[in-house]
């Protein structure tokens, strides 16, 4: 992966920046060109809290290229408290014990390294929110 393709997504991957429609207040993550609810193109950038719950999940046991050293790993759709849903790895826990509805919190983590360009990719992962 070439560097620009990676860095142009950084505001979302590092800071969970989402787009809130100024007209209907719907939040899109990642942003859309126009609001899927009302069609408006007038957005403001907001930062998601990073807190939410598992809406569905699985354990990846046969991984794509670049993730083989991480199997088995938890993967899920996290429904953020603000509404949007995010596909992410769920880590720092036994993925066998995860349940739908479990509370999750954002962590900044390394995703993988690109073998050909050497780009080290970081983004969000989620871990169980134990309320510390």
């Amino acid at each position: 992966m070439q560097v620009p393709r990676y860095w142009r997504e950084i505001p979302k991957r590092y800071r969970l920046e989402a787009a809130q429609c100024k007209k209907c207040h719907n939040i899109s993550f990642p942003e859309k060109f126009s609001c899927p609810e009302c069609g408006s193109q007038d957005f403001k950038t907001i930062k998601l809290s990073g807190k939410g719950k598992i809406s569905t999940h699985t354990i990846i046991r046969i991984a794509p290229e670049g993730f083989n050293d991480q199997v088995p790993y938890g993967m899920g759709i996290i429904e953020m408290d603000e509404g949007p849903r995010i596909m992410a790895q769920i880590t720092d826990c036994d993925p066998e014990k995860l349940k739908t509805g479990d509370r999750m919190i954002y962590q900044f983590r390394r995703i993988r390294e690109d073998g050909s360009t050497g780009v080290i990719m970081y983004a969000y992962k989620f871990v169980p929110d134990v309320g510390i």
Partner: protein
Amino acid sequence: MRKLAIIGIGLIKWGELWEKSMRQIAAEAVFKCLEDAGTDRIDTMTIGNMSGGLFNGQEHLSSLIPDHMGRKNIPAMRIESACASGGMAVRTACLEVASGFSDYAIAVGVEKMTDISGNEATYALATAADQDYEAFHGVTFPGLYAMMAKAHMDRYGTTREQLSSVVIKNHYNGSLNPNAQFPFKITGDQVLKSPMVSDPLRLLDCSPITDGAAAVMITTLEEAKKLKKQPVFISGIGHASDSIALSSRKDILKLEAVELSTNTALKMAGKSIKDIDFAEVHDCFSIAEIMILEALGVVAPGEGGKASSDGLTGLDGDFPVNPSGGLKSKGHPVGATGVAQICEAVTQLRGDAGERQLENIRTGLTQNMGGSAGSSVVHILEVI
């Protein structure tokens, strides 16, 4: 709009075809189709292919395939919509004929998936998902469908046995299909003993990697009536898209593109789902067939699992699904799948399906989708 008919189909035996190239299997399917149609006339050709670029390092199939056929000047174009490329190629060929641009349009679907390693093929298939917001994080297609399966189990109580019933039924049907990649029966015990790929989906819940091609010839109903063979009328076509990322959907158990494409096709045909006698659907994973049954409106949301284990969809059930063996047993050469579904529906409607022939059928439906149902295309076929 001119009325449409299918006058020829061409299918080859699918599998791991080490000795054959992409261009060769595509040409074989086309020539079988021409022979079946009883014509060598091709006004235009559409080519359903998901990723010649990643599977074979080969783009520009609109030149490659006619060239290898020895018919280098045919106007051809490649149509891509991930795993729905084949169905979309048929739809595009229909538009050519319906509009009057062409009188004889052939749609060929082809995918040669074993020219790269399994890992590379997994990567190529994952490009049907959102690269930046799904694949980037390490999710696979089995992973995406596993999340749908988990949600279906949580909300509706769908069981492991119900998922297995889809697999067992499709392999039984495939055991009667000489063109299938895996033409053998399997048991529920074999499903349970197969390796876990992405919980709760096991290896035998997943469709395979396949080399294959299929073709259909489309002309006007008027033209078709001049031929000796019984034509099959295409009475409905529907097509819709949905968000590419599963996480963008408010309800991941609602396959909106499938619902919309089905409703559009039924409306065009002037029918309801109750008028459909059987279907070929996109069972890329066991859970997909269950969810498609619900999206088609055959059963209510949440009842797809029970309907499957109760035998609704078997060859002798009230609504047979995937008499060909489906993607699961017949194989899933992604760009060819949607075309082959039409071939099976035509074979059934002509009464040529041998041991897997359905009785008392007049109307069939085919449903082909891309990615995690980010696109879907439906055709309705009838005997006249």
